């Protein structure tokens, strides 16, 4: 007897991980992103100070390696003597969590609309898609600003606005892949077997539309973090003294020519986390959705 040959293919997750691991950039992105998440999650224990603690004796202290800086405040302090490093660590909780929530809201809405359009066809489909076309015709930041102008500035309103702005992307993607899945025999079989519309939508069709959605969600996460930071920067998102990274930059603007560190570090945190997620997203796309080409 010949040696037993492994007949079972590896689990899709393991196979995917195998390919993902070979993409060094994606792996680096994942590691950096996880590091950010861990630091943000553990900030109450890791951060040297509370994000709101003001040290009146140490206002606009430069980072430790510059003259006048001290190791008491590694990255220096801001205009009211708050420790920048601590604020950035706590800020990760806001910025990354906000990004996550925005994506969850926007993806859920998008999936629901996309599946409805694909299943209903006809008038409902046309109506949904035309409405989405209108939303897509307006530049994203502009639309988000207008929605915030209606609802009033604030963290939750800004999150809702950004989620609404990106919903059409998920809806279109879901509709597209659901339409092509609906043509396939397994769906017909399931329908003939008496599966309800809900079951067809969420158990039969949706899992097969997942790969492009996961890729879009990863890349969308970075856009959501950027847009929320932009709204915070414009004074429309999270309000001071929330240590959200974009809001921190808005606070720091008047000191740019006097204290470079107050401006540099929060932005660097945004850039690095967004870059890490984009690298990760590119890697995921190559694994999950070889058809989509990088642009």
């Amino acid at each position: 007897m010949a040696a037993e040959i492994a007949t079972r293919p590896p689990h899709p997750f393991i196979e995917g991980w195998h390919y993902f691991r070979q993409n060094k950039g994606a792996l680096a992105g994942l590691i950096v992103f996880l590091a950010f998440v861990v630091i943000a999650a553990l900030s109450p224990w890791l951060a040297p100070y509370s994000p709101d603690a003001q040290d009146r004796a140490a206002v606009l202290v430069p980072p430790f390696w510059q003259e006048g800086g001290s190791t008491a405040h590694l990255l220096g302090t801001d205009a009211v003597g708050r420790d920048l490093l601590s604020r950035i660590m706590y800020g990760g909780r806001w910025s990354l969590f906000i990004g996550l929530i925005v994506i969850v809201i926007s993806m859920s809405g998008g999936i629901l609309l996309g599946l409805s359009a694909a299943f209903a066809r006809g008038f409902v489909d046309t109506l949904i898609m035309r409405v989405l076309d209108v939303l897509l015709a307006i530049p994203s930041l502009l639309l988000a600003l207008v929605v915030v102008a209606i609802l009033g500035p604030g963290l939750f309103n800004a999150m809702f606005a950004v989620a609404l702005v990106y919903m059409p992307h998920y809806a279109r993607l879901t509709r597209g892949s659901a339409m092509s899945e609906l043509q396939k025999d397994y769906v017909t079989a399931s329908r003939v077997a008496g599966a309800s519309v809900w079951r067809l939508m969420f158990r039969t069709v949706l899992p097969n539309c997942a790969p492009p959605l996961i890729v879009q969600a990863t890349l969308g996460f970075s856009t959501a973090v950027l847009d929320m930071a932009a709204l915070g920067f414009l004074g429309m998102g999270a309000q001071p003294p929330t240590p959200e990274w974009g809001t921190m930059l808005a606070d720091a603007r008047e000191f740019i020519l006097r204290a470079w560190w107050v401006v540099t570090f929060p932005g660097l945190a945004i850039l690095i986390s967004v870059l890490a997620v984009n690298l990760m997203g590119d890697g995921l796309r190559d694994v999950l959705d070889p058809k989509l080409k990088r642009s």
Partner: protein
Amino acid sequence: MLRFFLSRIAVLIPTFLGVTLVAFLFIRLLPGDPVEMMAGERGTSPERHAELMARFGFDRPWWEQYATFLGNVLHGDLGNSIVTKAPVLTEFLTLFPATLELSICAILFAIVFGLPAGVLAASRRGTIFDHGVMAATLTGYSMPIFWWGLLLIILFSGILGWTPVSGRIDLLYFFEPVTGFMLIDSLLSDQDGAFMSAFSHLVLPTIVLGTIPLAVIARQTRSAMLEVLSEDYVRTAKAKGLPTRRVVGLHAFRNALIPVVTTIGLQTGVLLAGAILTETIFSWPGVGKWLIDSIFRRDYPSVQGGLLLIASVVMIVNLLVDLTYGLIDPRIRHGR
């Protein structure tokens, strides 16, 4: 060809109507009714309130109000600013050249650096140069541009003192706008140093606004070039013994250009959204800054008009890109 043109335009009409509806609903969705909003904090008596509601037609059914609004929009009447009382359209048109000048410079900057970077990266695939371009463009693509602007101000205005921090030109210079483009007007004005002043004001905002389009154009050019370089006709051209420079520059580049042109055109939305942030950072007197200021001043008719006009500009440019695409590539216009 005419059919292709007409069909493209026909597709746009429902979207344009949708955008007008969004703009119309914007004012209606605000808390409080429009008369209270115009009256501001002083408030009005109930009788006066009712009279004003009737005069502006706010007591009629919403679809009648929308029809009136649409009619006004099509006649170029976008209402008046609550703050300055001037027509919104006039305000927009006064400020738009500043945004247009900045956007044109930004996209030129992005093309001038992005195209060659993409072509060179593709023709030297896998080298350090290629990896460098890919890393740099991914960073550019991930850049929070408002922060990028602040960094450049710190470096070039703060430390090096090369460029001014804000505005379009030094206050020393004054001349009547002819074209609305400061670079051209300053040349026409014949004042010493005016052009250099305008130019130095424009440099940083151009770089900031052009960064994301540059990254997108470079990456798109690279991938289009890679695709074309593996085509048979490129292999044939190489086999004929043509120098690489000629194969890459002439045979491959011209064919890779088609998707790139579309990408460039589709950056309009990115540019106008980016202009909101860029103009705010550099106090650039364009429509982006005006829009933000209008939101803060609760000047809602201006926000409404700005939304409608900016969305229209994006739609028109996208239509032009679509039509150009049909002109360059006959497969597109006959395919539909």
